[in-house]
């Protein structure tokens, strides 16, 4: 699950990173947002959305995106929520 701040909500961590990059000589960087990645193994992928809504993300302030990988590691589908 990729969880990121909703668009339009100030992300101070992203702002700090955005200011740090030019100091290292990287130019043309904009709209930096820092989210988080939750990796897990589970038997029933149907549960993922409820997990995100109830605990892993706060839908009031965060968007999440689910990426489903089969055991082989290939992407088996994905979905978005907000």
């Amino acid at each position: 699950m990729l969880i990121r701040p909703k668009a339009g909500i100030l992300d101070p961590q992203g702002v700090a990173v955005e200011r740090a990059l030019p100091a290292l000589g990287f130019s043309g960087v904009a709209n930096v947002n820092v989210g988080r990645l939750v990796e897990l193994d589970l038997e029933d992928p149907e549960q993922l959305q409820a997990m995100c809504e109830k605990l892993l993300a706060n839908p009031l302030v965060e968007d999440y995106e689910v990426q489903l990988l089969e055991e082989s590691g290939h992407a088996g589908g994905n979905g978005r929520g907000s």
Partner: protein
Amino acid sequence: MKFGVLQFPGSCDEVDALQAARRVGDAELLWHGDESLQGVDAIVIPGGFSYGDYLRAGAIARFAPAMESVIAFAADGGLVLGICNGFQVLCEARLLPGALLVNANRRFTCRQVELEVVNGDTPFTRACTAGTRLSIPAKHSWGRFHAEQRTLQAIEDGGQVVLRYAPGHNFNGSARDIAGVCNERGNVFGLMPHPEHAIDELTGGSADGIKIFESMRTALEGARA
């Protein structure tokens, strides 16, 4: 009357909360793993870092066995006060509107703040009147109150904005300078600053915080009479 102060692993302000509650009534500690609220008359969820604040502040604490009882207690009209981390827990539990985000200044900040009472007609502020100033310490990294515009308007219109940071004191970047909100019914209240740390001029910078606890006592006594 008796206050119950709910302790999680990682709570750190439960002792001061007990002290403050004992200035106005009886108080005992409740443990997060117990479903029973021991028949207390009001709940205080103190500050700290419940469950390490992992994931998001308050996110995991919200599912503690005691919280299910607190949610039922609130649904019955019981008074619930959430301070700092307690406020975050109440927002995560959807007992209060909005969410608390990382401070706009990105820093943990500890300072005395001036607050203005916006609604002096709640069970938590009736020892004050609208416009009363309270001087209370705040200490947090995640205290920026956020809600959607329509939610902000609804809580303003509904008198749910109970406290605001006075001009120049909104160090965390909270929407509309909001420092404390209550639910629609008015029996659940959360604030980021710490009234339990301001019950004695010697250590708290003021004794203004006791007004919150006095208000709760008055409200409960009124309900009994």
